[in-house]
């Protein structure tokens, strides 16, 4: 198949999936919370959330009106196909999907204002990573402004260590409070430089729910943080009942001797992304199928 042609169709489908339906595993994790909640206020909020997820899926409408500033994550071998051709396609599809689904136009150019198309200066943002096999993988992430506004970067003194990392995360979540539509999924990027830590934090949100870091030490920190952060009592929508945090994912990189960057990216309960894997003979929507 012609990859560029396929990419056009696949990207449209990904934008539609991401806006209108939660990834299967994200929905399953949220459903467990919905079944377990016993408080009246918590139950009321979750009943609306559950009904909203179902209605959005059936009506194919954006489940949240904030469909985010659009970003794509691409994995391919040797930058194939040509990145500038890929960009042209993603820009074209973003414009088309904004009209057709529709999405809320969220790209604001400085001085000119809202472009009306979700395409603006450098937006949609595209991340490329190399991949050793010939599979082409593309993810679209739709992240609302509310949860972006509470993200944090801490440049800690390295001697603060793991304890300092935990303190920074507890500070950030407590200060986020009700503002980003909890219960939250929290992406943590550790190490690297300041930009790397934030990128890892954002990428960590794309790790499947309940999947733990492959390093035992970090897996334990994730579990400890989930437990600890849930004692803060923020609750569903910040109303004090039910869980504050659904999951915590850590991604790490080596750091500079003088630096300990801690990037923290939040997702609202409506953690929206969709991934497709394209190979010679098939297309799989791995977040939404099966």
């Amino acid at each position, binding site marked *: 198949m012609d990859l560029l042609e396929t990419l056009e169709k696949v990207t449209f489908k990904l934008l539609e999936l991401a806006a209108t339906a939660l990834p299967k595993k994200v929905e399953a994790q949220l459903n467990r919370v919905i079944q377990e909640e016993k408080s*009246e*206020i918590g139950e*009321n*909020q979750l009943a*609306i*959330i559950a*009904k*909203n997820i179902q*209605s*959005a899926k059936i*009506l194919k*409408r*954006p*489940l*949240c*009106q*904030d*469909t985010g500033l659009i970003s794509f994550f691409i994995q391919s071998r040797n930058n194939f196909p040509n990145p500038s051709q890929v960009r042209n396609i993603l820009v074209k599809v973003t414009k088309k999907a904004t*009209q057709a689904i*529709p*999405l*809320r*136009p*969220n790209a*604001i150019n400085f001085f000119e*204002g*809202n472009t*009306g198309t979700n395409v603006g200066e450098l937006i949609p943002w595209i991340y490329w990573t190399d991949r050793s096999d010939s599979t082409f993988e593309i993810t679209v992430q739709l992240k*609302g*402004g*509310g949860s972006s*506004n509470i993200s944090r970067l801490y440049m800690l003194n390295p001697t603060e260590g793991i*304890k300092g990392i*935990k*303190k920074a995360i*507890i*500070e950030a979540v*407590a200060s986020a*409070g*009700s*503002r*980003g*539509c909890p219960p939250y999924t929290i992406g943590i990027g550790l190490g690297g430089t300041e930009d790397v830590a934030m990128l890892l934090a954002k990428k960590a949100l794309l790790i499947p729910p309940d999947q733990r870091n492959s390093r035992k030490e970090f897996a334990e920190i994730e579990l400890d943080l989930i437990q*600890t952060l849930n*004692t*803060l*009592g*923020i*609750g569903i*929508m*910040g*109303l*004090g009942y039910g869980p504050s945090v659904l999951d915590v994912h850590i991604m790490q990189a080596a750091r500079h001797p003088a630096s300990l960057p801690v990037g923290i990216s939040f997702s*609202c*309960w*409506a953690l929206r992304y969709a991934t497709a894997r394209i190979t010679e003979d098939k297309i799989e929507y791995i977040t939404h199928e099966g």
Partner: protein
Amino acid sequence: MALINLKTPIEEAQVRKLHIGDHITISGTIFTARDEAHLRALQFARDNRPLPFATQGNVLYHCGPVARQIDSGWEVLSAGPTTSTRLEKFEAEFIKSFGITVIIGKGGMLEQTQEALKEYGAVYCNFTGGAGVIAANFIEKVEQVIWLDLGIPEAVWVFKVKEFGPLLVAIDTYKNSIFDNVQKHVVARKDILLKELEADK
């Protein structure tokens, strides 16, 4: 859950009877305003110019919808609330200038707004964030859209709604705030957690 059904225009005397924890629904005319619309509307008020849209329902909704143009006008597909604290620095003046009695948003508002809610007689109600499709289902009609030069999310949308709710009264006219009560607990708990970590060698 007992529901109090209110129809617009909603008057000060009605909302002074409400308390945090009450659940209400609203039927009638409401309008949206976010950051840019607040700025512009307040400039109109300072210049003594009448607003080009109807605020008579007295209900302000912090919302930027997903909407598309159809033959008969506009169709709203998703219209949940936006984070209200961004409007904190404008809201007291906004309430005073336009006689707002109900604000619908999410996440709560702070001291200055709470003071204005008390003084002028208005409540702040929370609708579930992210529940855009459910919220849009309460909209019967788009009566007016104005200031589209600000873009779809920042424009002012005048909606006719039917039994929009349940809306949780989260800040009342007595300066009680559910969010403040929760946040006080969160901060106290955070301080304990940080101390415990510090003590843990």
